[in-house]
């Protein structure tokens, strides 16, 4: 009892955060897990159904389609999302004009600060078949306007491009910070040995960027599983079949169809996939990474 009195102020200070975590993080997690084994009726009455919800999710054709979409979009976004910023950062490091470098960094970084409603709005206008800049260029080149965001052939690559456009500046900053912190003596020694620019990049810069690249890779993969805003905002009746992802599936199931049991089951499938992926990736990285790097 005395110990509590001694730390009374501390307990009061930590209480709000603890209550928040308990109420809005731990409890929903547990409750969601329990709900995934129940079927909730319209009146809120719950009925235990065991793994029936999970079975329904796994045999749902739409779920399979959604997994494919997530993989498709995810693969594109992860590959571009890891490589493009790296190239940008390395190139930025080599740019001789400091003002150009700073300006490029700042400008490319900006879309990361926008919400997907804003980015979506900007690009919907640009890609519009009715006067959008991209289609105006297409018309000038002699083609006819393409309704990019309603065209099932174009929509996935466009989504990948937009996601890359939005985040490449941000990831480039992370890479650039890593490059800037590299030991300059390696580069100086290489210059003395007669190494050219590309040699230095290939043998000094890139190998030392492997840890950072791994971090970016994990971050990008995890964010792909959580993808919601972009798809929700930019999808429409024509493209929903090919761009709906795991989280929009959960949303539709839970919030539109009010199938709470199935929606929470699907959510936990996503959580498990996420945890599994991260564990596998972390293990792979520990084996691959050379000691001390």
């Amino acid at each position, binding site marked *: 009892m005395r110990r509590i009195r001694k730390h009374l102020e501390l307990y009061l200070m930590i209480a709000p955060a603890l209550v928040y975590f308990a109420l809005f993080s731990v409890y*929903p997690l547990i409750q969601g897990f329990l709900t995934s084994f129940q079927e909730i009726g319209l009146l809120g009455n719950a009925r235990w159904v065991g793994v029936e919800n999970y079975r329904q999710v796994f045999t749902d054709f739409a779920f399979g389609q959604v997994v494919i979409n997530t993989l498709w979009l995810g693969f594109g976004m992860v590959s571009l999302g890891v490589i493009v910023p790296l190239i940008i950062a390395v190139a930025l490091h*080599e740019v001789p004009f400091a003002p150009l470098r700073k300006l490029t960094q700042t400008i490319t970084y900006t879309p990361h600060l*926008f919400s997907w409603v*804003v980015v979506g709005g900007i690009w919907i206008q640009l890609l519009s078949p009715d006067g959008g800049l991209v289609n*105006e260029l297409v018309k000038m080149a002699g083609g006819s306007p393409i309704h990019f965001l309603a065209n099932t052939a174009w929509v996935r690559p466009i989504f990948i491009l937009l996601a890359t456009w939005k985040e490449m500046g941000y990831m480039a900053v992370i890479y650039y910070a890593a490059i800037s912190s590299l030991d300059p003596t390696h580069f100086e020694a290489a210059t003395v040995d007669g190494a050219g620019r590309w040699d230095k990049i290939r043998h000094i810069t890139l190998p030392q960027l492997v840890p950072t690249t791994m971090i970016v890779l994990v971050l990008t993969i995890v964010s792909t599983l959580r993808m919601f805003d972009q798809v929700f905002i930019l999808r429409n009746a024509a493209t929903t079949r090919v761009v709906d992802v795991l989280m929009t599936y959960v949303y539709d199931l839970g919030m539109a169809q009010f199938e709470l049991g199935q929606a929470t089951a699907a959510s936990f499938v996503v959580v498990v996939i996420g945890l599994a992926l991260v564990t596998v990736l972390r293990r792979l990285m520990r084996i691959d990474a050379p000691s001390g790097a």
Partner: protein
Amino acid sequence: MRARQRFTGTDWVITGAMLLLLAGTIIPLLNALALSFSSNLASVQPGIHLWPREWSLQGYAVAWRRLGLWRPFLNSLYVTSVGTLLHMFLGAMAAYTLLQKDFPARRLMVFLIFLTMSVPGEAIMVPLYIVVRSLGLLNTFTALIVSGLVSGFTILLLFNYFRTVPISLAEAARIDGAGDFAILTRVYLPTSTPGLAAVGLFEIVGRWNQFTAPLLYLTDHTKFTVQLALRSVVVVNDTISGMDVILPNTRMAAVVIGVSILIIVFPFIQKYFIQGIVLGATKE
């Protein structure tokens, strides 16, 4: 940093590539800005819009008044400022308690931070909705403020900042009779302004851009925040909603309203944000 040398061919290629990159990012933004400041007639004319052909604030007038975006704007201001202040306040208090090595609840907090940072928020989207509903917080600003009220990331970042403050300052304050809360406010907060600024900016941007939470919890149009209200304006679906068609200049003006706070905050972002990211990323 680099010794002065003759610019090689590769230098020009790289510079060219960077200019292309710059163009690829600026042109969409310029297009949106140009359209937003165009008159109704000019905004629907074909061709490339990188500069208003006819300057006008018609787009903004329609977006602000006729579409009523002034209300979501004010709602967002309210939620963002209250939410950010509370977020920082609660985070700072929690970070401070982590400093006290003999505090029993410390382990619990560390565990909770680790747990919440491992499980993505989207995964508990539906259960969280049920919790909010059962607390009677549906359709309230409180729900938006509470969403993301505490974050492990913030607590850890502030904890790392507080750790760099010399213990002697805290001890001196304690000898003067100050309690824990007073030590936090008089010793740690004033000396950690960069960390607080980084957290604050991060939070302001995050809250202003909040979309999923308002989407889930709000049904009353008058309570909509900016991003949610923006969605019906800028997202053009195949079916045009019953009202008259929304012109490009209005749509782009709405977009600019959607980033307005970020424009104001941007100069500060340059300074603190990038430091914060680097700190946060390397923490992984």
